[in-house]
């Protein structure tokens, strides 16, 4: 086999980024998966700043008993929008962005399978995001204030008459549609657009995880859209599906919602498990440990996550608690496989503590706490106590903020040089990491304590003398520390674009195909593709002295 494979289908690519169209219009009309990926990630990060600002307001209000900043009504809107924005617009959007950017590169394709559909899905996402934000502010009769899962009857027209919830529902429907379309695109691309030699068992783990994430989205979003549609009909056309007074049943909504809601949390973490699995081997200068195990574990998590939704409903007393408890506990096993594989990947390595690696380690340390507290919640009787308390709030921030968001920072520091051809600063990055790590644990560890002492979630105020004051104050201070970290990160990005220090095509010694093309990659990704004879084609290319496929 020759050392390069000619690309039969791609049109002769104009080389280098400078020949690409510039300007705002070219970004709006783009169908290039890389630009769409960047649009997703940048918008998602903007949503993070918005969601973070809302969180800041929550923390100020809860710093001590009594009113600090906002009324009860505003507070209720704050956490509703904070939750929705962070889950669906920030972490979900960023996951989609990474998949958009990376999957075609990693499988060696010139673009996504359906580029125009891809652009459409981005604009659905952006439009949905705008509607969700509008639902908070531009609403006559009060913003959406029903919590991120919008349980009826509270979210019905009787108790939430304003247009806020309607905008929220429409926004969510658009975001769901976007997620469906981009999921179809990702799966089709990964299945049908792979370069010669890129078999399924050579796909990078990130791409595997993106596939499973997309599948979860395809299965989980539609029933939730059905629930939102019925809720909308109840609200605006006088329907009664969820209205007990009219012969309906609000519990049906809970089932339909959590059938999405639970897989959604894995949609929000699997791409980032993938990120960690890309970062750890590169900075350990090793191949991934137990590749097949990673793939099987991802598939198992995906499959199991379809059968656990009612663990969010243990306290309703109307579901089969033991069944859902057992299914939920089982997820600890495949997740454990991943943890031990990650450790195996570092084992025997030559570990470099570059910034992406620091964030990956932060991910491991934080997520584990989120995971083991999840196991506690999975026991129905224990959940009777900790459900809907700050213990639960701490659990999911450990998985989402401490886990997914740390992985997002790892991803940014890791792929930024690839996407923009310039590097972020190692020195600033270390500070960003330190501030976020310390601030994060300072914010959310005390929330476990507050929850165990009996503090319910979603309260605008709490009584003094019950032991809630100290944990809440610490929590607010921690959020302040995190804010400094986030601002410092923005400084880092700003200076990186000013310095424009050339990154090189493969600054870290990467394994997957994106490291075998230029930084940033040309219009159709590859001028020539290296031969693909293992799951580390870029590594093989840069280490011709090692026989590829030796370790297999």
């Amino acid at each position, binding site marked *: 086999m020759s050392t390069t494979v000619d690309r*039969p*289908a*791609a049109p002769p690519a104009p080389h280098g980024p400078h020949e690409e169209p510039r300007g705002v219009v070219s970004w709006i009309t783009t169908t290039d998966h890389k630009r769409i990926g960047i649009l997703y990630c940048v918008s998602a990060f903007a949503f993070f700043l918005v969601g973070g600002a809302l969180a800041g307001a929550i923390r100020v209000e809860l710093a001590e008993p009594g009113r600090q900043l906002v009324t009860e009504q505003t507070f209720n809107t704050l956490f509703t929008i904070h939750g929705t924005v962070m889950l669906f617009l920030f972490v979900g959007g960023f996951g989609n962005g990474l998949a958009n950017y990376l999957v075609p590169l990693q499988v*060696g*394709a*010139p*673009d*996504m*399978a*359906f*580029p*125009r*559909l891809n652009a459409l899905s981005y604009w659905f996402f952006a439009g949905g995001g705008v509607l969700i934000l509008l639902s908070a502010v531009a609403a006559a009769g009060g913003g959406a204030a029903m919590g991120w899962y919008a349980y009826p009857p509270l979210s019905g027209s009787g108790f939430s008459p304003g247009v806020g919830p309607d905008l929220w529902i429409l926004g969510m429907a658009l975001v769901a549609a976007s997620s*469906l379309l981009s*999921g*179809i*695109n990702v*799966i*089709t691309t990964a*299945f*049908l*657009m*792979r*370069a*010669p030699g890129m078999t399924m068992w050579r796909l990078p783990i990130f791409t595997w995880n993106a596939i499973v994430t997309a599948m979860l989205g*395809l*299965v*989980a*979003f*539609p*029933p*939730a*859209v*059905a*629930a939102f*549609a*019925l809720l909308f*009909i*109840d609200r605006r*056309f*006088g*329907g*009664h*599906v969820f*209205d007990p007074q*009219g*012969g*309906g*049943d609000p519990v*049906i909504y809970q*089932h*339909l919602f959590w*059938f999405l809601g639970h897989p959604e949390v894995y949609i929000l973490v699997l791409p980032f498990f993938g990120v960690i699995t890309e970062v750890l081997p590169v900075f350990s200068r090793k191949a991934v440990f137990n590749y097949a195990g990673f793939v099987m574990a991802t598939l198992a998590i995906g499959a199991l996550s379809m059968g656990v939704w009612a663990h969010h409903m243990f306290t309703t007393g109307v579901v089969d608690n033991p069944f859902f408890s057992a299914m939920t506990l089982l997820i600890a096993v495949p997740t454990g496989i991943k943890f031990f594989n990650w450790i195996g990947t570092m084992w025997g390595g030559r570990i470099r503590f570059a910034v992406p690696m620091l964030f990956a380690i932060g991910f491991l340390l934080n997520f584990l706490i989120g995971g083991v507290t999840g196991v506690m919640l999975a026991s129905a009787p224990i959940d009777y106590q900790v459900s809907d308390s700050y213990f639960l709030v701490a659990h999911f921030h450990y998985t989402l903020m401490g886990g997914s968001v740390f992985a997002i920072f790892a991803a940014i520091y890791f792929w930024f040089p690839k996407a923009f051809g310039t590097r972020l600063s190692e020195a600033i990055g270390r500070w960003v990491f330190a501030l976020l790590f310390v601030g994060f644990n300072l914010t959310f560890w005390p929330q476990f304590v507050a929850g165990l002492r009996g503090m319910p979630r979603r309260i605008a105020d709490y009584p003094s003398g019950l032991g809630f004051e100290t944990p809440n104050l610490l929590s607010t201070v921690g959020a302040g520390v995190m804010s400094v970290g986030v601002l410092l990160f923005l400084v880092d990005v700003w200076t990186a674009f000013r310095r424009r220090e050339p990154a090189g095509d493969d600054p870290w010694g990467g394994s997957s195909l994106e490291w075998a093309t230029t930084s940033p990659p040309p219009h159709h990704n590859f001028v020539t593709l290296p031969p693909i004879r293992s799951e580390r084609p870029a590594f093989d290319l840069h280490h011709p002295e090692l026989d590829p496929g030796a370790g297999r």
Partner: protein
Amino acid sequence: MADATVGHRGEADLSPLRFGTILFLASELLFFGGLFAAYFALRSETVPWPPAGVELATGLSAIGTALLLVSSFTFQAAVGRAERGDLRAMRRWVLASFLLGAAFLAIQAYDWNAIAFSVSTHAYGTIYFAMTGFHGLHVVAGLALMAVVVGRAAQGAYRDGSIDGLESVAYYWHFVDVVWIALFATIFLLR
């Protein structure tokens, strides 16, 4: 619909468009699955079911069902003709399917008007209108797709034998048909 990146094919030579359509329909199935789940949950909790005073036009809907069922066959005939390159016949068969689908919609519209309860009468009314309504929207979308197919054929598409677009529409139309049969069986026969 010619929105597919030309690229390397994996081992299976399935066209991206058809593959994507199948994925899309899988998710559509789950959307209706959600509605069906809501229906059956309500049904199991409500006595009597359907509530007193609900009269369904089962006979009329059976005719609609038959029309929709036939339209699936006529559309498949259109695909068969297109495969053989007979685009004129193909267009005729698509037109036939279109008319059958439109007749189905007309029956639905009549039923919606004639029926004695409304979306806000009770939970049964809501779920009845929601299920038939969302299905009806899918039929409307199917008719629009057929119009697109005929239009594209008039512009010379499918002549080179690449009929992925047509086949994808066929998948969709069969899907809409199958969903209706399940709906009909659930709402009208099983009650």
